[in-house]
């Protein structure tokens, strides 16, 4: 069917274009069906929209398959393949090239979106006659129409070249030297795009006026899945940049990182404050606004990072998408504000908060802090743009700013995280708090002493570590009581899983604080046989291997890290890419990481290398913490059990 020859197999590109077109038609068909049946109040016709959803999903699957075939079979008649892949690219990275550049990443976005919308359609197929579900599906389909429209028009991934080059240009080498590149963007998109589902239900609740807690319960799992994917995606991104970029850090407050972090912050605020609404029926306006804001921020982040308005390592080529994304963002904002304004008086909640020293009070404090956190990140990200627009000044807002502003907020968040589980709903008596918080506080104090014994210093870091211990203490206390009461089910459900996730956050905080505050570094010019020492770690430069790998010159240094073995950081000069790319090598342990990277590519006939050695304590705890957070979130999805009633037969079993 596919013929090799001149012009290669244009068929694949045609197949892709066809897939996108089918997807677009499917989305529009779904929207029109729902609009007409909602307008004419013929609930029995809602079901027809599901068929359109399947058409759309089929089109998206076809388009993605076509792109992958093109990439795997080196069809350089396709513009995207020619620009971003090469014959020599390993298979894994050929697959991952789908999300390596602008058009492909939008294709992935659309694909993930169609998977979510299909899953929603299937899981709600029996309730599709419910206007709430229909409106939610309609909202999601409108989002599909927008993104598929981008693929049809301005960001067509299936453009062809009249003369196919012999070989393609290939991705930025940074994007093809670590397998995490294959997972991190997918996880991130699963999170990013996943917030479309709760957004759809939030809009539907506002439109239909069914503002009770029903829609929240319907979307609980979807929100958690999106949240945990985003969390894991962000952490994998941090891990990737740690393993690949060669500077020993994992977070640079780069605009693209911030763009993924912003919806995470508001989403995190939401999954906490929603508990207050489910439990007490309060904070309705606030929760809806948080969901609307979370989705709006994903679009705003896409605008920031896909339009070329901001310089960033992640930035794709400047494109014409900017105005379109900005308009879509504006539309979402206007619709959201209008809906909330319209339904405002129906959103008044019946409950009240009796005491700030209560579970509700803690959730409110959590939300205030997360919102402030998000505000600072947003301000820091867009501030250079604002200033430049006002007076043409070029400013930078870098890590010192974010550190200074966010550290107090982070410390306060840890404090609230520690206290919250010891508080009761409505109000907590001082004596109860004094009893419940005692052991956790003692653990916190002991953690500080322990940290000092291990050489920690500085008020901020030690306080942070102490609060981390406090959080672990109070979460563990909660879990122990839950398990005593309910058996293994005590660690499931939102409160059990949540506490496990909090322990993960503390581990992550330990790793973050220790690695940013107590790292040591050294730079050595070495010849084979030379030794160096950083923070008690002896390293010996054993040998240098200088070889050609195809057209690339790869220089590999073999370095013996005493007690850890031989590690070989490398540096590669690609002919198609200006400056050499260093590939660091990390000797990991749970105590500290010895991070080795080559600073510059050595002279052709020299065996002298410049090696940078960074010793960063507890970095591995961050990745373990991330794993625990993900595990806790999955436990939270498992339905838990709050109480076993005293008269229940399960007591004592």
């Amino acid at each position: 069917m596919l013929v090799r020859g001149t012009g290669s197999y244009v068929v694949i590109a045609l197949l892709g274009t066809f897939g996108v077109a089918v997807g677009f038609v499917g989305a529009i068909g779904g929207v029109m069906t729902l609009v007409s049946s909602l307008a004419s109040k013929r609930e029995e016709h809602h079901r027809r929209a599901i068929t359109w959803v399947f058409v759309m999903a089929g089109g998206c699957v076809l388009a993605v398959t076509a792109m992958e075939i093109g990439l795997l079979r080196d069809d350089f008649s396709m513009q995207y393949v020619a620009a971003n892949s090469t014959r020599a690219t390993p298979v894994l990275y050929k697959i991952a090239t789908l999300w390596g550049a602008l058009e492909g990443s939008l294709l992935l976005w659309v694909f993930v979106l169609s998977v979510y919308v299909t899953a929603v359609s299937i899981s709600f197929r029996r309730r599709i006659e419910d206007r709430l579900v229909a409106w939610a599906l309609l909202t999601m389909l409108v989002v599909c129409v927008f993104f598929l429209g981008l693929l049809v028009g301005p960001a067509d991934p299936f453009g062809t070249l009249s003369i196919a080059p012999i070989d393609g240009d290939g991705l930025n080498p940074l994007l093809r030297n670590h397998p995490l590149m294959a997972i991190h963007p997918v996880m991130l998109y699963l999170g990013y795009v996943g917030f479309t589902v709760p957004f759809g239900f939030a809009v539907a609740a506002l439109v239909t006026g069914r503002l009770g807690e029903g829609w929240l319960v319907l979307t609980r799992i979807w929100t958690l899945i999106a949240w945990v994917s985003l969390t894991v995606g962000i952490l994998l991104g941090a891990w990737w940049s740690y393993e690949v970029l060669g500077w020993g850090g994992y977070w640079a407050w780069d605009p693209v990182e911030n763009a993924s972090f912003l919806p995470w912050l508001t989403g995190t605020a939401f999954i906490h404050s929603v508990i207050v609404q489910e439990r007490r029926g309060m904070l309705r306006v606030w929760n809806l606004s948080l969901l609307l804001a979370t989705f709006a921020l994903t679009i705003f982040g896409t605008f920031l990072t896909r339009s070329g308005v901001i310089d960033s390592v992640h930035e794709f080529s400047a494109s014409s998408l900017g105005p379109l994304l900005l308009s879509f963002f504006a539309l979402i904002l206007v619709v959201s504000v209008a809906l909330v304004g319209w339904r405002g008086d129906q959103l008044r909640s019946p409950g009240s908060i009796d005491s700030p020293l209560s579970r509700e009070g803690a959730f409110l404090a959590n939300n205030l802090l997360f919102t402030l956190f998000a505000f600072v990140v947003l301000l820091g990200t867009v501030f250079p743009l604002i200033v430049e627009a006002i007076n043409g000044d070029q400013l930078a807002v870098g890590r010192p700013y974010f550190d200074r502003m966010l550290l107090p907020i982070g410390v306060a968040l840890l404090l609230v995280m520690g206290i919250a589980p010891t508080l009761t709903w409505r109000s907590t008596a001082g004596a109860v708090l004094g009893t419940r918080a005692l052991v956790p506080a003692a653990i916190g104090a002991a953690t500080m002493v322990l940290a000092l014994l291990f050489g920690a210093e500085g008020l901020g870091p030690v306080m942070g570590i102490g609060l981390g211990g406090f959080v672990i203490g109070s979460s563990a206390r909660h879990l122990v009581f839950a398990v005593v009461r309910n058996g293994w089910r005590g660690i499931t459900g939102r409160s059990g899983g949540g506490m496990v996730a909090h322990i993960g956050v503390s581990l992550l905080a330990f790793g973050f604080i220790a690695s940013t505050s107590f790292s040591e570094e050294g730079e050595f010019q070495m010849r084979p046989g030379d030794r160096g020492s950083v923070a008690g770690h002896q390293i010996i430069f054993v040998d240098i291997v200088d070889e050609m790998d195809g057209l690339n010159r790869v220089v590999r240094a073999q370095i013996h890290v005493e007690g850890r073995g031989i590690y070989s950081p490398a540096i590669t000069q690609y002919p198609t890419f200006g400056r050499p790319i260093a590939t660091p090598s990390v000797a990991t342990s749970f105590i500290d990481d010895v991070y080795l990277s080559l600073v510059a590519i050595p002279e052709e006939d020299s065996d002298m290398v410049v090696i940078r050695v960074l010793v960063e304590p507890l970095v591995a705890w961050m990745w373990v913490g991330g794993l625990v957070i993900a595990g806790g979130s999955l436990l939270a999805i498992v339905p838990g059990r709050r109480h076993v009633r005293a008269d229940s037969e399960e007591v004592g079993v």
Partner: protein
Amino acid sequence: MKQRHWISWFCIALVSSLALVAASVADDPPATEAERAYEIKATMLCPVCDGQNVLESNAPVAAAIRAQVDELVSEGRSDAEIRAWMARQYGKDVNANPPRTGIGSLIWIVPVFVAVASTGFLVFAFRKWRVGRGSELSDDDVTIVSSLREPT
């Protein structure tokens, strides 16, 4: 609270404050020239590499800035002088810290303002909640309750 709790809390507070005092004492301001140069480099952005600071970057211009910082520090220039010199040389956006004067200072002021205002709003709303609690009884409520009570 039981008396032994008071004693335990006192011990915890004592240990914590001692630990925090010890932690702050151990954390000296940069003493040597090398430490001072390190701090400056960590807060200067490499002009060509999108967000990395000159300490971390492998770019040649970052290496040049590192050398210049070392030189200026050893000449005994103050931090502010060095930053100003770098800003003249490489543009204002070489400083990772936004300025504290002019329009740039807003980035420091606005979040503090927002924090104070939103906390204030919450406290206010909280008071209102407490006052308004349970005071409103709509006609519907009365009807429902009375209709339910009638049979008994």
